């Protein structure tokens, strides 16, 4: 009893983590490598979507730059985790001082996250004052800037060419562990004092300011935390995919995580989890259809873009009919103990009381 009472504040994250673990176990038991791959990428996406939720959900500001920080984390972690020989093989132009760097997987990931967070802190500090359209355009500008730099800084990123030869460190259970940690972290952030103040400023910025909430500071902290999660997620993704280009971190990817978060519900952590699961499932089904039609060769030019068209239509429908997503502002919980109420209701309905 005592244990249950103590775990009560963690009701939601424990429920979500239970769901995550069930999915992971099922994937493990299925033992089909295609499914394991899909589920691994899904947990990495989950981490990214949770990171996006942390900023967007609590501050109410749309953030387009998230995937940019994922890219920074991916490239940074790879620079540390690859062996010097592999680095020179994939990018002979690499700055000489970057070549000998070599660290194990976990420190590389964390450095990736930290670099993303530090860059986010520097870039975003002045931007946190902006709201509404100006805030959105500036985050979009940040995304474009990061993309242009990744694309053209040949001596670090290998330019638009594919960076290959990354070791495959990320397994299904690595991604599960990170997804679980992130779920707890994002939920605890939401319920923390910072999260609470940020949500207060989201709902009424003047009221929040009047009780002494430093909105700019709260947003800044959330933005950094969000970029850190994106950076680590990028590192995880890079060590799973093992070869990528700067185009992996641009508008297409941004659209995918936005769809996941908005369909699930940007204002709750459960929404991020539910959205990621549902959209991943939907995407895989749609992709399978797309591939099947391509194999049949019904269309001479190929059958591309079907998945995105359907997802975009669903996204618009969700925004029209349920703009707060599937979850709204609710969080998933264990079924609460309310049998008595139900009994009473049942009695009332039957007309016996």
């Amino acid at each position, binding site marked *: 009893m005592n244990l249950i009472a103590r775990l009560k504040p963690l009701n939601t994250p424990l429920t979500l983590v239970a769901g995550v673990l069930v999915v992971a176990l099922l994937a493990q038991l299925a033992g089909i490598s295609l499914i394991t791959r899909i589920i691994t990428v899904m947990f990495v996406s989950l981490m990214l979507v949770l990171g996006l939720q942390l900023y967007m959900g609590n501050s109410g500001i749309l953030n387009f730059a998230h995937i940019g920080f994922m890219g920074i984390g991916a490239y940074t972690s790879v620079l540390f985790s690859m062996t010097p020989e592999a680095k020179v093989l994939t990018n002979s132009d690499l700055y000489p001082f970057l070549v000998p760097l070599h660290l194990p997987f976990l420190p590389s990931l964390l450095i990736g996250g930290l670099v993303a967070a530090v860059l986010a802190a520097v870039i975003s500090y002045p931007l946190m004052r902006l709201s509404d359209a100006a805030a959105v355009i500036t985050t979009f500008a940040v995304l474009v800037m990061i993309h242009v730099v990744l694309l053209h800084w040949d001596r670090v990123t290998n330019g638009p060419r594919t960076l290959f030869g990354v070791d495959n460190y990320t397994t299904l259970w690595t991604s599960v562990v990170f997804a679980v940690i992130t779920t707890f972290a994002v939920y605890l952030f939401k319920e923390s004092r910072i999260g609470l103040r940020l949500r207060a400023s989201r709902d009424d910025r003047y009221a929040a300011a009047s009780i002494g909430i430093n909105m700019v500071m709260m947003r800044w902290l959330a933005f950094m935390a969000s970029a850190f999660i994106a950076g680590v997620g990028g590192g995880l993704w890079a060590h799973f995919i093992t070869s990528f280009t700067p185009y992996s971190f641009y508008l297409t990817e941004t659209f995918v995580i936005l769809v996941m978060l908005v369909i699930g519900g940007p204002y709750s952590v459960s929404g991020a989890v539910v959205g990621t699961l549902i959209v991943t499932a939907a995407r895989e089904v749609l992709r399978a259809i797309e591939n099947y039609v391509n194999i049949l060769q019904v269309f001479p030019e190929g059958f591309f873009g079907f998945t995105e068209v359907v997802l975009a239509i669903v996204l618009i429908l969700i*925004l029209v009919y349920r703009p707060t997503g599937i979850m709204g502002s609710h969080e998933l919980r264990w079924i609460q103990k309310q049998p008595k109420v139900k009994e009473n209701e049942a009695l009332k309905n039957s007309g016996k009381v």
Partner: protein
Amino acid sequence: MINLEFIINMISLGSLYAMLALGLVIIYGILRLVNFAYGELIMIGGYTMFLLAGFTPLPWLVVAVLAVLAAMFTSLFTELVAFRPVREKSLTAMLITSFAVSTLLQNAALLIISPRARAVTLPQIFQTSVMIAGTSVPWRNILTIFTSLVMLALLTLLLRRTVLGIALRAAADNFTMTRMLGVPANTVISAAFAISGIMAGIVSIFWIGRSATVTPTIGAPPLLVAFVATVIGGMRSLTGAVVGGFVYATIISLLGVLLPPDLLEFREAFMFAFVIIILLFRPQGLISGKTSEERVG
């Protein structure tokens, strides 16, 4: 390096960007919506030209007019089915909707036509040049300048002399008040989207006139240009959009000449850094609208 040819090209680029920015600002002014799907209207114009010029015997001028109309109707259609239902909700919902519409149109082109670039047949005049004061100037550039002057004149007439124009300007100043005075919101917003579509259609002719090909992703670069130009000029003012277009063209042309080659690749990053700086220190842009957003009384 900075000679007559450079200046004429710059003015031509500036007038193209001014039209581009106008189309974005006219919607932003009324709805506060940064329309991410704006670039895709240019793509629609391009594909219309590709289909009509390649597969029908229509004269080229008719093709161009139909391309503009196609962009206009797409703009109206997106407003009707996507933006109107979310208009009353939040600004974020509207922005995500426009992002979704952009992805939708782009992938629809991918799905229906082809991921590969398509060659657009253009009339001879797009490839020939004329000698002016000893320098060769492409006819295309002269046409761009001429068309933008005509469009600016027409738009000014519309906004100054017609009831619709006055309603549009009033709505941009204070939409709620305008509605209370009996101006139907839907009409004004549809008109803004129509004008935006016409601008995108005209820009598409000249934008595609430079490369003579159209791809599903062709809308992205002009959208980015329009973003920067409108922020520079001022998102709340139509004059600002024109000024922003010319300022953008001037800066980008000068950067092209002055930046060392290895930094030239980062030109776009510099432009967007500039956007951030402007939004921080002069969020109203070079030319501010008449009523500022937060003003009370």
